[in-house]
């Protein structure tokens, strides 16, 4: 069991400001069911003062406590001051959070930023996912810009720290190497790029069995998680030469957008990570 401060326990058991503000001036939504935590934050602003804030949170004790703490920190504050709030302020207000749970406080900070953007008409209530950066952690949908910011703002020193603060690297672990590079980049170290000796495409020179395993692995690691996050799934039915036959399951079967998913996700990933000549067909 995680060790929580009395204040975390209090805010978890007696959360303040729970609910929806129907006439909110700004709404910020972050997280998802698949990630295991999500927060919707509502703020009401009058004469540049945050007069009310409410939240709804799906998540563990520290996620709920962090959301409750955030609303308490916000109410009565001028907008300029509220904009400066960081995850550290939330954690400090609670008397600290276990290091493994710091991402809960980061979620609060992100929701607040989204709420302000929404208030100014710069973003819809639901968090935008149109990042300019590079997607690093596919399991939790974390981009390099978020990771670099977390490293800088919280003086993170290790990959484990990055996972604790952003969740990146906490799923399949495939992005650990990228996280190490980002950490080095943030610390100003030069990352030695080894001269590329990569084949023209990943499956080049592979035996049929190796190629099949690679296709299975790309489906398991790159295609399945986002589909499952939406309640769907995919099954590899057959591989015949350059033709990969798949079947959509769950919410994906019968989904009106399944052809787009087939082309934009399944085929794109397989072409990029296995062989550009692969053709994907649905049965």
């Amino acid at each position, binding site marked *: 069991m995680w060790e929580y401060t009395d204040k975390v326990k209090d805010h978890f*058991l007696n959360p303040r400001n*729970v609910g929806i503000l129907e006439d909110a001036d700004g709404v910020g939504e972050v997280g998802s069911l*698949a990630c*295991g935590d999500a927060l919707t934050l509502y703020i009401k602003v009058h004469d540049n003062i945050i007069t009310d804030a409410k939240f*709804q949170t*799906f*998540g563990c004790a520290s996620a709920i406590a962090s959301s409750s703490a955030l609303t308490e920190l916000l109410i009565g504050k001028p907008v300029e001051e509220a904009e400066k709030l960081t995850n550290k302020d939330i954690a400090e207000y609670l008397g600290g959070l276990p290091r493994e749970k710091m991402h809960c406080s980061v979620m609060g900070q992100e929701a607040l930023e989204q709420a302000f953007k929404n208030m100014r008409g710069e973003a819809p209530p639901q968090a935008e996912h149109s990042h300019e950066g590079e997607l690093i952690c596919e399991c939790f949908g974390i981009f390099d810009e978020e990771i670099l910011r977390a490293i800088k703002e919280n003086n993170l020193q290790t990959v484990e720290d990055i996972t604790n603060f952003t969740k990146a690297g*906490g799923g399949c672990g495939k992005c650990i190497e990228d996280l190490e590079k980002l950490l080095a980049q943030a610390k100003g170290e030069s990352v030695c790029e080894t001269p590329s000796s990569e084949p023209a495409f990943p499956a080049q020179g592979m035996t049929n069995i190796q190629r099949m395993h690679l296709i299975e692995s790309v489906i398991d690691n790159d295609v399945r998680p986002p589909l499952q996050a939406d309640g769907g799934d995919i099954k590899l039915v057959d591989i015949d030469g350059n033709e990969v036959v798949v079947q959509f399951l769950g919410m994906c079967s019968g989904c009106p957008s399944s052809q787009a998913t087939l082309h934009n996700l399944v085929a794109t990933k397989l072409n990029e990570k296995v062989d550009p000549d692969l053709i994907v067909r649905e049965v």
Partner: protein
Amino acid sequence: MKTIYLDNNATTQVDPAVFDAIKPYFTELYGNPSSMHRFGGQVGVEIKKARAAVASLLNCLPEEILFTSCGSESDNTAIRSALTAFPEKRHIITTAVEHPAVLSFCKFLEKKDGYEVTYLGTDEHGRLDMEEYKAAIRPDTAIVSIMWANNETGNIYPIKEMAQIAKDHDVLFHTDAVQAVGKVPIDLKDVPVDMLALSGHKLHAPKGVGALYVRKRTPFRPFLIGGHQEGSRRAGTENTTGIIALGTACELAQKNMNEENTRVRALRDKLENGLLSAVPNSILNGDKENRLPNTANISFGYVEGEAILLMIDQVGIAASSGSACTSGSLEPSHVLRAMDVPFTFAHGSIRFSLSRFNTEEEIDFVLETLPPIIKNLRKLSPFSPEKQGLGL
């Protein structure tokens, strides 16, 4: 506040009769069973009785039982023994839903020692595919390790059939029976496993004692090398109190098996059916028909497991969760993920595991207090079935 303990797959209360049986061996009868003098020899006699009691519960020979420190040691010993006995064989078969005592060890062997491991998948109820299993067996398969019953869902696997298939292919078969021993009948004269692991603290003995069954004539290589204890198969001065406790616990388990399979099962069913009907959007994880009589794994959609656990802890209910937050990782239980339990439910899973010490009043209390807790947590949550329909 009274604790309603429903986490018996994690550990169990030491049976008061077990505690009474071992008390003298801490203070009065503390001799070393390997000593030549009578003072130690009388302890050796008790160890012999304990070995016979364990063997009786499993219907095997006493000399086929060696005592260890825990289930993990038994599992590791069995797998390591097979690999050492057949160094030319480089392949292992196990499942994706094993306890870490097997799963982490296999991943370690794969990464550090270059073994190839086949992890059998499951269907949505956690059931194994026998065709996939048969197809996985290779000439260089050193050992198959499949758990008898799953610790999270309680699913019981077809060990007799799987062990026979391994035997037909001349491959050693090990089973981690830590969750099954004492809860369901096990007859090793009828089930052709070569090695079986069990743990004392899962059947009302203390923590720190386990046993490994090794069928006669099975190639065996000791893990701990030193003195001649356990017929030179496991060195180290015996944990005498633990071993005597395990023997007593096995005797009691044999006596109480019927109760485990009737009264405890009825309590479990009452709890399970009551919760599933009182809480909308809750599902049972696992194989409804083929399960340990004491285990119910229920997912409450749209709420998170740790939050539920801490809320029920406030009213004295102790259970367990397969949610990411309680496992120390960020991904929910590997067992539920292997079963493709949707994220909507996987994060909110709670495992209730009963024992013969649970009462109907306790179950009534849980049925009364838990549904409102879920309701309150759902009020806090931005997700709900209705909102899901709106595409959130």
